[in-house]
């Protein structure tokens, strides 16, 4: 079966060093970006940088770049299902309107006196 025919790829320490350096620089960058007021794009930039970092870790540290196709399929399936969970649920919150036309959360102010246990 062709699935077993792949040889192990050894990533060199130099490559690892380059990746960790990039990761540290990106960490600095994300902290820096947080102190700039980008409005609603702050979170977008933070997530973008985090995703770049995660991708580097997956591809190089975890050797996904050199892995067989089915490993990549597993990774993509994981991301896809996470997206299903997040976006399909958020589609409810984004469009939830009650009979008065009030959007989620239906009650903006809850009395201060309500404690932790209602």
């Amino acid at each position, binding site marked *: 079966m062709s699935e077993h025919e792949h040889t192990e790829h050894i990533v060199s320490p130099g490559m690892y060093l380059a990746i960790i350096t990039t990761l540290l620089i990106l960490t600095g960058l994300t902290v820096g970006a947080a102190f700039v007021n980008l409005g609603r794009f702050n979170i977008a930039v933070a997530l973008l940088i985090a995703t770049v*970092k*995660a991708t580097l870790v997956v591809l190089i540290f975890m050797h996904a770049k050199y892995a067989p196709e089915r490993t990549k399929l597993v990774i993509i399936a994981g991301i896809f299902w996470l997206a299903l969970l997040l976006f399909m649920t958020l589609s409810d919150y984004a469009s939830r309107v009650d009979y008065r036309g009030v959007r989620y959360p239906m009650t903006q*102010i809850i009395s201060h006196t309500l404690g932790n246990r209602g």
Partner: protein
Amino acid sequence: MHRTGALYGQFKTLEQQKDTATLGMWIFLVTEVMFFGGIMLAYTINRHTYFHAFAMGSNTLSLGLGGFNTVVLLASSFTMAMAVWSAQTSKKGLITLFLSLTIFLGFVFFGVKYVEYAQKFHHHLVPGKTFDIFYCVRNPAKCSDIDAADMAKEKEEIEAAVQADPDLNAHAQLYYSAYFGMTGLHALHMVIGAGLLFWLLKESVAGRFNAEWNNPVDIVGLYWHFVDIVWIYLFPLLYLIDRHK
């Protein structure tokens, strides 16, 4: 099943065995993605709905400690990758060295996390009956670890946040639910990872790993890197909300 050398009885070749173990770990990591996905969803909805409270809560975290821990964890991922490399190239001494370094960095992370958690307990910022986002502002004497300048800034921030969200105490508690839920779960995974690393260290000292047989180092490495990835997302999501104020 019986084991012949490194080969378990249900497999035909070492390569099949390695393939199987690696695939198994990747699939397990996908279940972990979904596991964290549930709490990520709760975080996303509440962060969007109660942004002021979340920004307020985030600003009470120490960026220094969080950033330091990020660097520590990234470094531990690097040493773990190096441990895998050492195993693949049969450098037995280096395996032990890099595994020890990884464990050490893991414990540095735990230490910093302990300091952060202890501070939150002390400041009544743990969800539950005693939660009180105003505790330090109202009892500055009991929060002596916050210096006067920071305290003044915090007071100002809290007052502004209450203006925007009168139910700040309840909603800030949601932020801390997310904070403790996510970092607690992450820390639990690190504890499991550290346990696995100790086992690897023991095997490595016994000289079991080499270019032919390094499966365990490889797949524990996958797990450790995954835990690192979770933190890569947690750091900006929890520590970096609205820092520019």
